[in-house]
């Protein structure tokens, strides 16, 4: 027993005094002094500490942190000698789980308890389980960027912080669902709100804010982000993270396994958000046409999530409905009228007839819009000189199937035109229809769009299409309080939405809002029928289709080269990129990779590929541990198999990504 004394009070055993601070790393903290010997077990020391503190509390999460060695003393059966602890060790008795502030991919903030003692890989897995994000191996944590001192103290918007520190996660792999959300979220209104924040897309950001946020202006800027990744094989405490620090949670590896809209609402949403911010902050470049599609999808997603239409659209068997109505029609007709009508009734299709002004651009004519009587039936548009001529032959008849429909709208100018590019064997013929007001425009536009896809106005989507067009028009009306005779769209919330919030700032500079809106509207018509999850998935897919998708940039210097270059790491390859021009110099695929080595002393990574191709480089922008972890991580992710489900071979991961760096 440590602490045996003689009568005079001298210690007669080899015991010595050990001072342990209670609490987190705080020199002012309360401390206890114990009498121990080198033979004392950690478990015994823990017990003594608790006895000495003599306070009733749940100490089960507490453990001893050895500051100098940056090490947790977690092996309770080890002795102090085995750990090599002497009297001069600065030990802290504190909780292993501490709160951190986590900035999610959707830029919202949650406070939650993270493990400071387990390797980051496990800590992230626990966080993801709490947030109900599957496949945590694809995510990791970054340090928050250091805030630059602002000249003028701009008043920072008070952000809402969702608190999840109190939430206790039940055991078991998959948290049970309760009221449509994982059970641990359904305890209180706050946590429920948090789940909605996690699983529903956020509204578009304020365009002004968007312009103020930092954007990478060059490839070397893009390398900055990747220098902040935390090390997966070490714990947060070892990496100098303190309780209450801000960390970013991001998808690190761009290899999204088994993305399932049904089981992954949070994962899908967060992935969508990360993709969206990537595009808005120009972390990844796209073309103008692609940006319009992204903007249209964002608009559509926002509209659906605002209006609460979360479920899939009812996709009843149209053919069946069709037949039933036809049957009813037939029966009605049979009871009453002449048999000749019977057959007509089967093909009854709603039609539009109205006076519209039509313009056909032709060479060598200066004619403008002319009033015509226009009949739109089935997928065919016919126009006549006047209403009286209608039973006769039309001036022209156009089948709109396969045509291009382009809106040409200027609300303030009260111009509602539809440009049609109608294919015919001879080529495309261009024709403009000018409508009088929004209502008329929406009806004809919806008809044209359906017809271009080969559907008629009898299609069930016609009404919703009309509504969607009206809703979009309302976007363009400044202030919204314009014409009073306009019927309320389904989503008043969308009114006044600024298209600038949907596109990257460089497009804000390039286009005026009123130029942007019609282009987004045009792209929107192809996605208007998607459900919320479909639209999110489509967004992610389009993001994945970008040539630069999923490349993490590091600044490196290749062996034998005198200048810095960029190494791009993607899920299947390494890319050597010229720093100045941005051209791809060389690509190596992981599938041809034999082995890779890291020399921690000279911070060099050496890779051997098939056919004795050797590549070596030292890392400039990020530590070579990050590069090493990226490569190992992608190799690990490629070993995942569907059959194994969500089970993770953590040892393999740490083996592939860990290293023997001297700390």
């Amino acid at each position, binding site marked *: 027993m440590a602490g045996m004394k003689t009568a005079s009070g001298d210690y007669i055993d080899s015991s010595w005094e050990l001072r342990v601070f209670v609490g987190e790393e705080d020199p002012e903290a309360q401390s206890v002094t114990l009498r121990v010997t080198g033979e004392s077990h950690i478990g015994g020391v823990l017990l003594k500490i608790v006895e000495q503190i003599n306070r009733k509390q749940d100490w089960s999460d507490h453990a001893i942190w050895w500051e100098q060695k940056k090490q947790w003393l977690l092996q309770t059966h080890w002795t102090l000698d085995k750990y090599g602890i002497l009297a001069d060790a600065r030990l802290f008795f504190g909780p292993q789980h501490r709160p951190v502030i986590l900035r999610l991919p959707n830029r919202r903030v949650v406070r939650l308890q993270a493990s400071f003692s387990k390797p980051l890989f496990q800590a992230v897995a626990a966080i993801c389980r709490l947030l109900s994000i599957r496949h945590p191996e694809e995510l990791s944590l970054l340090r928050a960027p250091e805030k630059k001192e602002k000249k003028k103290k701009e008043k920072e918007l008070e952000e809402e912080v969702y608190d999840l520190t109190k939430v206790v996660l039940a055991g078991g792999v998959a948290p049970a669902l309760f009221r449509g959300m994982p059970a641990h979220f359904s305890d209180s209104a706050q946590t429920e709100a948090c789940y909605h924040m996690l699983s529903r897309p956020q509204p578009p950001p304020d365009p002004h804010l968007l312009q103020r946020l930092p954007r990478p202006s060059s490839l070397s800027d893009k390398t900055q982000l990747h220098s902040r990744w935390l090390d997966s094989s070490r714990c947060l405490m070892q990496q100098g993270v303190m309780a209450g620090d801000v960390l970013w949670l991001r998808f690190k590896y761009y290899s*999204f396994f088994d*993305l399932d809209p049904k089981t992954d609402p949070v994962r899908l949403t967060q992935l969508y958000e990360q993709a969206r911010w990537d595009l808005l902050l120009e972390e990844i*470049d*796209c*073309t*103008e*046409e*692609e940006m319009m*599609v992204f903007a249209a999808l964002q608009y559509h997603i926002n509209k659906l999530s605002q209006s609460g239409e979360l479920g899939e659209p009812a996709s009843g*068997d149209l*053919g*069946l409905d*069709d*037949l*039933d109505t*036809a*049957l009813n029609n*037939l*029966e009605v007709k*049979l009871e009453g009228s002449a*048999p000749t009508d019977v*057959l007509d009734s*089967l093909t009854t299709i709603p039609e539009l007839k109205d006076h519209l002004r039509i313009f056909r651009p032709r060479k060598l004519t200066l004619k403008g819009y002319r009033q015509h009587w226009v009949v739109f039936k089935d997928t*065919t548009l016919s126009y006549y000189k006047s209403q009286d001529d209608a039973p006769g032959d039309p001036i022209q*008849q156009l*089948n709109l199937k*396969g045509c*291009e429909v382009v809106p040409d709208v200027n609300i303030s100018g009260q111009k509602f035109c539809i440009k049609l590019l109608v*294919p*015919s*064997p*001879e*080529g*495309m013929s261009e024709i403009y229809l000018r409508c009088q007001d929004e209502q008329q425009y929406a009806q004809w536009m919806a008809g044209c769009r359906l017809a271009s896809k080969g559907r008629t106005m009898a299609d069930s989507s016609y009404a919703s299409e009309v509504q969607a067009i009206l809703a979009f028009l309302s976007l363009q009306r400044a202030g919204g309080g314009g014409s009073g005779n306009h019927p309320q769209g389904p989503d008043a919330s969308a009114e006044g939405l600024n298209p600038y919030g949907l596109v990257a700032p*460089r497009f804000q500079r390039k286009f005026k809002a009123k130029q942007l809106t019609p282009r987004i509207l045009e792209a929107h018509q*192809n996605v208007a029928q998607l459900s919320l999850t479909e639209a999110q*998935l489509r967004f*992610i*897919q*389009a993001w*994945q*289709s*970008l*040539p*630069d998708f999923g490349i993490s940039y590091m600044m490196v210097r290749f062996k034998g080269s005198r200048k810095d270059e960029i190494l791009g790491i993607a899920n*299947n390859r390494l890319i*050597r990129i010229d720093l100045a*021009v*941005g051209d*791809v*110099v*060389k*690509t190596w*695929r992981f*599938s*041809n990779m034999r082995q890779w080595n890291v020399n921690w002393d000279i911070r060099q990574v050496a890779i051997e590929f*098939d*056919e004795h191709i050797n590549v070596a480089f030292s890392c400039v922008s990020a530590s070579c541990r990050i590069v090493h972890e990226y490569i190992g991580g992608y190799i690990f992710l490629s070993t995942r198999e569907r059959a194994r489900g969500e089970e993770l071979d953590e040892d393999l991961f740490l083996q592939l990504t860990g290293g023997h760096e001297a700390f």
Partner: protein
Amino acid sequence: MGESNEDIDQMFSTLLGEMDLLTQSLNALEDQDLDALMADLVADISEAEQRTIQAQKESFQNQSHFAPPETSAHSSAACHGDAAHAASITISQCEGDLPPPPADPVLDLPLPPPPPEPLSQEEEEALAKADKIKLALEKLKEAKVKKLVVKVHMFDNSTKSLMVDERQLARDVLDNLFEKTHCDCSVDWCLYETYPELQIERFFEDHENVVEVLSDWTRDTENKVLFLKKEEKYAVFKNPQNFYLDNKGKKENKETSEKMNAKNKEYLLEESFCGTSVLVPELEGALYLKEDGKKSWKRRYFLLRASGIYYVPKGKTKTSRDLACFIQFENVNIYYGIQCKMKYKAPTDYCFVLKHPQIQKESQYIRHLCCDDAHTLHQWVMGIRIAKYGKTLYDNYQRAVARAGLASRWTNLGTVNTATPAQPSTGTSSSQPNGQIPQTIPSVSAGLQEAQRHETIKVSKVRSPHKHILAEEMAQQLRCLPAKPKDPGGTSIWNWRPPVPPKRQENPGLPSAGAGGEQDFMSDLMKALQKRGHMP
């Protein structure tokens, strides 16, 4: 009230009777007659055409009710085989809920050409009426199904006429042709459309609807459908490295990319086609673009992206933000250009063409691009197809492989069973809109397969440039008033034979029943027709 009921009954009975008439005549058709029929039709049509030249054009485009009277009677009969099945089954059911038609055709023979007496027991009357309404509806639906007789030019310069209905995909037509030609069913077989006037040609993608594509052709077109082997069709799946790993980082890894082991290929394919989104090969380079309306070509730097083809504007770099969109793929098809060097003074003959499928004549909306060599051309064409069709292309390939595998297995087993593998995957049963439709008669009778094996197809030349005849207009005719042929038995087609009960009806799939099993129907018809040819 009672009287009007009678009227309706009468009307339906007449209608059904008429349909049966047509049915029978159709069933009497033998396969080789199809070509003869074509010839007759074509003759009739060209005769009629002279009288109605202007109107013809319109009617073709709009599929309106306009049709020359002579042709309508013939072809409405020829084109309503499906209705035929429905008709004969249902009537046997009306006559007292018999069990499914027996296998022996003789029992079903005496279906007389005049309409059967309507059932008039009081208690059954209402039921019968409802049945008939539904039946009539089915038939009307059926009658609306557009069908084309397509002349397919075979690899050996012969031609075959095929009936293709509007629900059939290129895959179904290929399967049909496999059965007829007993070829090796390799994945390289494809339907190929050529436009002699524009000097362009392309594959039908296996998932494309054949009738839809053909309806874009004009009446007097010289376009042809070919059945031939093209290894470019699925080249990307055989050697993905040639498309995905080529040219990256200059020419140095050219040797490595040429040979690649099967496992790596598989891995590459999985990576490219089985992820959340399909990867489009990274493709960029200088191509020549034909300038609008001129025979001059301008060299520009083009890049392929999933969203379209882009070019680098003058003085700009090839970063995403500077690119200008050249074309997007939603509304265009990709074609190979043939002999553009001659026709358009192209720098090389390796051209590809993008145009809206409906454009059939020279137009400024047709885009011509010219590559330096054949390899580049194939890369671009394949790349564009991947960007346009995505995963569908891979699915098509896998179906084609499955089909080829099936065929070789059958040959190996020695039991040439060409009847069953026709549509392996489309058969997922369709929902039945109303319970009155005859139930499934499950198995394929052995006799049919036997007959199938021995059938031979004679090919007769069609005398006219028309490759296909639009049956829709004739179908319209049937809907309004099923006209009796003027002189039954007058031609070889109209020799009246008793109808045959449908043997194979895995899918009673009346056409309205949803998309699922519909494609099967036409091949059923074809088989029934073929079988007739060998009945004693």
